């Protein structure tokens, strides 16, 4: 298991290097002179030159990259062009809200998705299946920002049960995490169902029945455990979707997270922040995939023991 973990960790290195090259190339792909953009309207030529050095845009490309990597590894991400604060500070404050929102959304999406998926899979072709799948396919077809607006309108404005947005106690989490998780819940429900149905047709499920295992155990022990293997992978992929979705949902719910920061940075063309954020998002995604792989090995002995 340890060997597996180390191997998997080493395996992320090329992806991270590629991501870093992409992020590095990001500012350099921009049309025009980013230093001029960042320096602002009042800047003199010296100011622009200073900003260029600050952004690491001076010297040969390779040297720039090495320097960039060095700084990144030391956690020096530069200063925001907009606020003049260190980027790490900007991002740090917003990291936890986004993380918790994502986790909350995933938690309910997973619980809901698995439950609906299994029920639909067991009651294949009956009304429970149809109801579950209607919900699921609607979930993936619904624009999340619209859902968010409708939820605020209903639960906050009309009923006054829940706050409209902002980051605070658990009540603040309800609507944003529902909005964010809806699509993922739907995807997981569908996916769990199809994995479940597929596993149900496996010979070993028949074997379980042939030895007189009660249906309940056939479902939870023999079928679901195997169906979970692909579901785990899918869940990992969906984390990426959540991270992306948080960008929109944070706007709707005034959530002080990375997503909103990103939109603000894009509209202000605050390149140091955009750059760092893309890096962070990718890092998070890679990390989540790592965790998923470990989980995957946990549920799948064939991976774990080989």
């Amino acid at each position: 298991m340890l060997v597996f973990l180390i191997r998997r960790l080493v395996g992320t290195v090329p992806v991270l290097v590629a991501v870093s090259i992409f992020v590095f190339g990001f500012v350099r792909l921009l049309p025009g002179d980013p230093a001029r953009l960042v320096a602002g309207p009042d800047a003199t030529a010296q100011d622009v030159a200073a900003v260029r050095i600050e952004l690491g845009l001076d010297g040969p490309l390779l040297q720039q990259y090495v320097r960039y990597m060095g700084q990144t590894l030391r956690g020096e991400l530069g200063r925001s062009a907009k606020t003049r604060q260190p980027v790490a500070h900007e991002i740090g404050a917003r990291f936890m809200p986004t993380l918790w929102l994502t986790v909350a959304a995933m938690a309910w999406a997973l619980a809901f998705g698995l439950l609906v998926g299994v029920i639909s899979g067991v009651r294949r072709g009956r009304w429970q299946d149809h109801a579950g799948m209607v919900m699921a396919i609607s979930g993936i077809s619904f624009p999340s920002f619209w859902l968010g607006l409708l939820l605020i309108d209903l639960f906050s404005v009309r009923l006054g049960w829940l706050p409209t947005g902002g980051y605070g106690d658990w009540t603040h989490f309800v609507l944003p995490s529902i909005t964010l998780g809806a699509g993922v819940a739907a995807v997981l429900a569908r996916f769990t169902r199809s994995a479940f149905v597929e596993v149900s047709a496996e010979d070993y499920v028949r074997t379980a029945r042939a030895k007189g295992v009660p249906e309940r155990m056939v479902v939870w022990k023999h079928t679901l455990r195997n169906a979970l293997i692909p579901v785990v992978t899918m869940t990992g992929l969906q984390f990426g979707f959540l991270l992306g979705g948080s960008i929109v949902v944070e706007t709707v719910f005034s959530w002080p997270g990375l997503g909103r920061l990103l939109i603000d940075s894009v509209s202000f063309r605050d390149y140091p922040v955009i750059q760092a954020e893309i890096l962070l998002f990718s890092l998070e995604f890679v990390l989540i995939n790592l965790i998923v792989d470990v989980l995957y090995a946990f549920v799948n002995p064939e991976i774990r023991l080989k």
Partner: protein
Amino acid sequence: MRTLRIVHLLYPTSAAPLSQTQALLDVQGLRVTFDTDRGPATVVHGLDLRVSAGETVAVVGESGSGKSVTALAITRLIDYAGGRITGGRIGFTDRAGVLHDLATETPEAMRRMRGPEIAMVFQEPMTSLNPVLRIGDQIAEAVMLHQGVGQAEGRAEAKRMLDRVRIPESASQLDRYPFQLSGGMRQRVMIAIALSCRPRLLIADEPTTALDVTVQAQVLRLIASLQRELEMGLIFITHDMGVVAEVADRVVVMRNGEKVEEGDVQRIFDAPEHPYTRALLAAVPLLGSLADQKLPVPFPVPDGPPPRPQDTVTDQPVLEVRDLVTRFDVRRGLFGRLVGRIHAVEGVSFDLRHGETLAVVGESGCGKSTTGRSIIRLEQPVGGTIRLAGLDVTRLNRSNEPLLRRAVQFVFQDPFASLDPRLTIGFSIAEPIHTHRLLQGPAVEQRVRELLQQVDLPVEHIWRYPHELSGGQRQRVCIARALASEPQVIIADEAVAALDVSIRAQVVNLLMDLQARLGVAFLFISHDMAVVERVAHRVAVMYLGQIVEIGPRQAVMGDPRHAYTKRLLAAVPVPDPRRRAYARDLDDSEVPSPLRAPSDMPTVAPLVQVGPDHYVARHHVGGLY
């Protein structure tokens, strides 16, 4: 094979007459229907079947005959497979002597009966075990469920069962997962699960079909001995008449969901009444039937003239293979570290002459297919030389590659998979012609028509798609396609293994006919010794990537000199109930894996001559050959 012709006396082959035994299972008028998207389809029509305690009833039939569905209906697992029992009753007398109609039992009552009363063993050991559960737990689960014992007791029982199915080191095996076991071992585990609750009726659905012949013999023997021990009723479902002859007391022959004949095993083999049974038996190649004949002889055709031996071999070698080596590197991890090598083919040498059929036999993983694939370069050999009609084709280049691709053709095992489903038969046959630019324009179509005629297919098939053809017809198409480039050598890789027995004989005859007419040489790769006996001039036996014995067919099969050859031949089920193999000495050992550590190179045993053109590998034992 003459040595095997001894009448077996140790075990009487017929069970007690039906009237004397209380029927354990009494199926009457069973109908099973599936709801397909084309509407309901009845696949079993009014079947009657009786099994007594301690009796073995073989249910025989070709694919689609409804035999497996019958098994699922009896256990009511059919409820989960999309089918329904739409008629008849399934009488079953349980341990307490109570008679049940399984066709109408509640699901819960059925569940309680599965395991302690009725158990099943399935065909596919590779997929029948739950991949995420330890095998000990999978066995113990049934024990704990039905006998109400705890974890420790269940585990102890699981260990006892593993001992019983002769799995070595049973204690340590309990914690292993299915993927860590070979197919034969998994089937033993399946048997252990099925028998863990001492069922009164065991239904074995093609339990050995997916296994190699030596493993099959082991498993058959195991089932038989456990059956006697536990006094179970046994329904043995198979398509293989050889297996039937080995195990059955009584035989039920099914076709298209109906029973066409039933009777004592001896009677069925001696005097089959129904034409279908007769055809079935006629098509079964009987190993040893050509023991007196030096040359290959086609299968006899019902109502046709008796076949004549074929002498087609010339002295001229068309294919010379020397020291062929093909290995597959097993790499792991990020940097693809070499952790092992599969020595699929290790120092294989042979000649193939014009008009000759050289059969390569051996069990799965022995390297026989890889040998064929390496010659046609579907795999890349790492050593050795290959000469085609004197020309070195070891290293392919622009000039010799088209030559090889034209002169050597390959026929694959699965006729359903070897034709592109999106292309017409005509195009598939014409593809070699186009590829090698042998003909242009309308001449192509003309040639395709000729080829279709050569393989006895109607020329209208030229516009058909593969899905419109049966398996046998498709294999004929594949042969026509192989002939399209006028090859000198055809490598037939288990080319008839996937076909039903009756079709198999026709296709074998077609191949032999083509050899007689066109003088083409065959490298006939097969695990089926009986077919090999029909077609081969010479036989090469492979084991762990090496040829351990090679020589004239009559010499190798009649007078095997290598221990492995002997073992292989002894394991072949003989379709004659009088020649049951219980007494044959079979060991329970597993075939070693051809996967070795990178530094662990195998020694290639030299072949020594033991007779005219007959060579045997002499192994290095204790520092001496």
